[in-house]
């Protein structure tokens, strides 16, 4: 397939286009906020608090009179950065571990990796995240670590689970006969065949990452004020939901649409990259 053909196929996928547009909108908002926001998010004006959306403040103002649109733009930086790094940690460490475990199935390496994984994974993630932030203090970095650690076993288990049946296939056997080592087979034959599931899981983990960051911030353990974060905006809005529903709606929809966009993009990508499905 030529690059041109791939591009045309991409345009045909509605998921891909809509998803990327949504995700891009927030990414652009986040990038733009590095240089410019409609209002200063650290400026408090109590006199103009809790204003409903208007031409002056498109998304209204919060309980301190801050501009919600500006806060959502800056908050996008936090959410996206934390989630991307956390998924990166999970995939970067989890996938190789899963491949190695599958390649050495039943042996000591497999056992060690999988038991180690079970162990990390057996710890209640949110509780441990709370403990990590208790010990080291609440911050964006600690939120990333707390979320990232728990992505590792997810990818490792999934990779191993999907790779195991592949190792019994004929084409793997013939690859072994032709003298390829387990590392090469894992990379050349196993990895491409599990990418599918990894993309699905990756998008899920990404959305979970954004949601987990929101949850941590929601309980006050994410980035600290005055840096805005979507989760804390939701927490702040809770008691005001009846008098200032816009405070709860905009950050809620920001999370929802970002996650939705990323998931749609992931789905579209999978359809595009999997030749079997596309040709079917």
């Amino acid at each position, binding site marked *: 397939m030529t690059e041109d053909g791939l591009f045309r196929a991409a345009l045909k996928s509605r998921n891909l286009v809509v998803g990327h547009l949504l995700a891009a909108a927030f990414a652009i908002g986040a990038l733009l906020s590095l240089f410019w926001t409609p209002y200063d998010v650290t400026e408090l004006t109590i006199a103009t608090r809790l204003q409903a959306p208007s031409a002056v403040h498109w998304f209204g103002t919060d309980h301190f009179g801050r501009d919600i649109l500006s806060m959502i733009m800056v908050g996008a930086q936090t959410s996206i950065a934390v989630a991307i790094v956390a998924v990166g940690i999970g995939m970067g460490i989890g996938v190789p571990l899963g491949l190695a475990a599958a390649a050495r199935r039943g042996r000591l390496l497999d056992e060690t990796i999988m038991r180690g994984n079970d162990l990390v994974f057996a710890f209640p993630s949110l509780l441990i995240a709370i403990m990590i932030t208790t010990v080291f203090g609440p911050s964006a970095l600690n939120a990333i670590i707390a979320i990232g650690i728990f992505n590792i076993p997810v990818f490792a288990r999934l990779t191993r689970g999907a790779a195991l049946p592949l190792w019994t296939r004929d084409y793997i056997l013939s690859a072994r006969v032709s003298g390829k080592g387990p590392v090469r087979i894992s990379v050349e034959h196993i990895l491409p065949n599990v990418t599918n599931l990894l993309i699905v899981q990756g998008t899920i983990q990404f959305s979970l990452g954004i949601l987990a960051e929101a949850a941590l911030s929601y309980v*006050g353990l994410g980035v600290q004020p005055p840096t805005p974060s979507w989760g804390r905006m939701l927490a702040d809005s809770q008691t005001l939901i009846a008098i200032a529903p816009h405070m709860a709606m905009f950050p809620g929809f920001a999370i929802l649409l970002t996650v939705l966009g990323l998931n749609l993009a992931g789905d579209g990508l999978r359809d595009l990259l999997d030749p079997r499905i596309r040709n079917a």
Partner: protein
Amino acid sequence: MIKIQQSATAFALLALTAGGAWAAKADVTIGMQLEPPHLDPTSAAAGAIDQALYSNVFEGLTRFGPDGSVGPGLAESWEISADGTMYTFNLREGVKFHDGTDFEATDVVFSLDRARAEDSANAQKALFSGIKSVEAIDPTTVVVTLNAPQGNFLFNMAWGDAVIVAPESIDDIKSNPVGTGAFKFSEWKRGDSITIERNADYWGAAPALEQATFKYISEPTAAFSAMMAGDIDAFYSYPAPENLVQFEADPRFTVLAGNTEGETILAINNKMEPFGDVRVRKAVSMAIDRQAIIDGAMFGYGTPIGTHFAPHHPDYVDLTGNAPHDPEGAKALLAEAGYPDGFETTLKLPPPSYARRGGEIIAAQLRDVGIEAEISNLEWAQWLEQVFRGYDYGLTIVSHTEPMDIGIYARPTYYFQYDNPEFQALITALSVENDPATRTEMLQEAQRIISEDYVNGFLFQLALTSVVDARLDGIWPDAPTQAVDLTGVSWTE
């Protein structure tokens, strides 16, 4: 039980058809934010224990009234010796503990000796430190001898930490509290609720309520939903002032706005540079716009204060004029003190919303005069460790809820580390002074000293806001102490 309920229902229906009125409701469910860790008011600092049990289940020799006055409790009357060191308490007769045992003078001796013992776990041990001896003369007479005269001994004995407990039931007190009060402890569903029920053998006037349940709801949103959905009849000390407008507008509810003993301050670490310089402390105080904080963090509930004293107290002096909101003046003072470009410091905030929200506002106000205060949100345990014991902070916000606690400024090792011998001498003199007029003068002088030394940023007196069903009567609007006294609560209509 089912039968009783059925006949009660039948009776109620009858009353409805006959008299057109509903039979009086005799139980109440009160929402509260903090659940007690256990049920012994004499061995923990948790105010939640006193809130549920003080005056309801446990009583002391003296007791607080709704206005904070101290009146007779288990002691019917008392005589004070001429030198002010000997208190003879005449105890009420015929009082029984909830387990059926008699209340006698020996129980008082036991309780006070336990509280002041070497290995006592009493969180307010200082209340008892002036006691030299406690003796039972006969079953209804107790004599307490003090080391020196103490102006506020009867006040001290009214605290929840000084209630009378019995040696027979002390081992299980943490899960099964046995007192002498108008209500008996009934059930504790941990994480959910505590139920108390009317004590049929109570020595005093029987309460109108047969049963009361304290339901613990820590999330303000959940509190709002529970109140709106009618799951609870009242929420004591409602945690989200922003919702009060809605409750006020709803005829089903009454909002009680009262006073607490909580002076909310921006505490300054007086020993940490640059706060050792009084000009810097004054600049911090002038950078603060108290009204903006009260509006922004408390939605208008709260009274500005200029010193560490409750505005509803007769001896209060309004000193808010000592540090008016003046950012330019603050900058000039900072420049004079050698910080023309401001400086950086930390602002450590404990969990309550007055601190978290107030902290964000104060950080923004300080930024306007060039002071960069880096916020970190702490839990109470961390706050105690880092701020209170470790002195590792620049600024913090906390509400001091103990009544009449200006004396903390006389302790040089107290967490804000204010060391002023003149003030310390004044407080020492005050503690042995019995003349009311002189006491007033001294208290006012004490207020002035700390205000003019700008020891801390004095913000506002914390308001007590409770939301109650409009038909419920008798909930204390003020909080002279940590108590939800239900002995006078009833349903109207």
